[in-house]
């Protein structure tokens, strides 16, 4: 190319390079994923609300989620759903679901609980991954049960929660029961009498 022509073309080469850089920048994976993650998190949240598993009506149950938690819920929820494509047998799938729950419960146990309660009752054995939550956040769990967040299935949650609280040693049980309303304490005492 002649020097004069090259000089004339330089600005256009520059603007084309800028366009290339803009393409790389705008569509870089983490940016697209982050956007997708937000959309997914919103979609998940919307789905949960549509299906009656949104924040519960009673106070103390519907702690507003931070954006980070919502996004994390999207990630865990995606991983959860993707197990359906893995061809795992039931026992393997339950174990894999349990591993995802192990992380999810730490990030946002309420979103994780919503997800388990939306599976069929024969998957409720996964509730054992909430043993620590049942003890630590006994009041919040009781509020979810009382608000009938999961319809009739709230009773299944209640049964498992009662088993967990009843299995605690004396000190832990006393701690867990602190601040619980009278109905909850009565339910625990009744469960203990049944043995």
């Amino acid at each position, binding site marked *: 190319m002649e020097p004069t022509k090259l000089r004339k073309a330089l600005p256009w080469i520059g603007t084309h390079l800028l366009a290339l850089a803009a*393409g790389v920048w705008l569509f870089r994976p983490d940016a*697209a994923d982050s956007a997708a993650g937000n959309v997914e998190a919103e979609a998940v949240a919307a789905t949960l609300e549509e299906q009656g598993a949104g924040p519960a009506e009673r106070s103390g149950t519907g702690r507003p989620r931070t954006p980070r938690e919502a996004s994390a819920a999207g990630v865990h929820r995606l991983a959860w759903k993707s197990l359906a494509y893995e061809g*795992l047998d039931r026992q393997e799938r339950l*174990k*894999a679901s349990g591993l995802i729950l192990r992380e999810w419960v730490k990030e946002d146990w309420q979103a994780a609980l919503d997800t388990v309660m939306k599976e069929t009752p024969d998957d409720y054995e996964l509730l054992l991954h909430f043993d620590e939550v049942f003890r630590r956040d006994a009041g919040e769990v009781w509020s979810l049960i009382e608000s009938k967040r999961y319809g009739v299935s709230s009773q299944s949650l209640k049964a498992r929660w009662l088993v967990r609280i009843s299995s605690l040693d004396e000190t832990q049980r006393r701690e867990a029961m602190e601040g619980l309303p009278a109905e909850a304490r009565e339910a625990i005492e009744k469960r203990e009498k049944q043995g």
Partner: protein
Amino acid sequence: MKRSLILLVSHLAVLGAGAWYVRADHRPAEELQHAAATKTGERSGSRPTLESSAKRLADEAVASVKKELDGAVVRAAAGKLTPAEAEKLARALAADEKGFGPPPREELAAAFLAWFRQDRMATLDFLFEKGMEPGKDAVLKQLLAELSPQEHLKLVIDRPSSIYTFRIAQLLGTKLGELEPAEAAALMAEAQQGERSREILRGIAQGWPEGKADRYIDMALASGGNATALLQSFLGNLQSPRRACELLVAIKGRNDLPEDFMRKLEEQKEMVGHLYRYADPSVPLDERVEQMRNLAWLRDATPEKLREGALKQISTVDINELMKSGPDYRYAFRHGAMSAEEILEAVRKTFPELAAASDYETRVRVYNELASEDAGAAFALISHLPPEERNLAVIHQARWSFRDNSPETYYSMISLAPGPDSSEAAPQREDAWNNYGAMAYREYGDAYVEWLRTLPPGINRDVARSTFAKSMATQGKKDLADEFSSR
């Protein structure tokens, strides 16, 4: 103007090229659009697009549950630990967050193994201290692999009677299945000494390796006068009728079995018919059907009625077993990874003989399994049937669902048969609600009663209420009986 247009297009093309380049190897072609996970049987058409972090999480979970302990690595690592180190390390690793997995950990298994080599009883006491779980079972297998069959049997005898010792006996059975029949028979004779012989024999039979019933027969025959008792022990002690049936299949064509065993089997026709119902699907279908004639209710049936009755039960057993131990089709259906038709096709491929024998039974059984996940989507499998046949299939499914169904799920299943009912359907619907109502009241208590009050008018409301009222009257709960007996 023309030049500006060209420049605009070329800039956009370059921008697009940049985008293509940077995304090309990030997103595999199969990663497609994502729909928020929903509890539905509607096929979503594609695998959800996974964020890299979600993909990593799912991949790790799958890899963890697929991972098995590498015995050679475990043994090598165990060899490097002193006894004192081993116990300390075993206790520490068992208590940390990763515990017994999944994934299983070679270093943890190695610590237990090194400890076990020094003090078997203390190691096992600690392993069983807080109950068993699959991860502990994997470690236990590593420990017992160290023992000769004789040492293994001694351990079973020396341990106190418990479910854990029973597990050790099962694993002895697995080991005996690999031995020469005479050697295994000698150990079986030893196992039959002492007070706990019945429990130990039961464990050994249950642990006998799958597909090796012929070796069990050889072992029993090698034991001499004890053969009949050992063969009967296999038939009676296996928890799984499918496994027990392996022995019936294996004795076919043999003429070296003790006469008294064969005579006894002649007297156990009901058991034979029952076990063939659960036979492995590799047993020819016609043979299973014919053997089911041993059942009292099919003994005098015409060939057509025998086939009809037997196919109904065989299809139920085989497809239910597949759903329990095969790929988790119900989860795939629930989350939209497979449609009902796709699952039906997979079932047909798994059981080609059954599918060829009765498309109807295959179809209806798959519907049976999927309806509790999403009744509406599963209904596609039977929607083409004539109305009466379809109604009966729906009601039958509701009566014989193998799942714990919430009242909402149950209602959505049985509502697919809207009524009015024929004289054949009416008592079945009543039976369905009668059974479900009793179960649901036990499970959900007052919450079920509240739910029952909210049912919309219709045949299911009427039957659900009337059967519940009768049940409450029987239980002496007059208020509830009165409330629900009125419409």
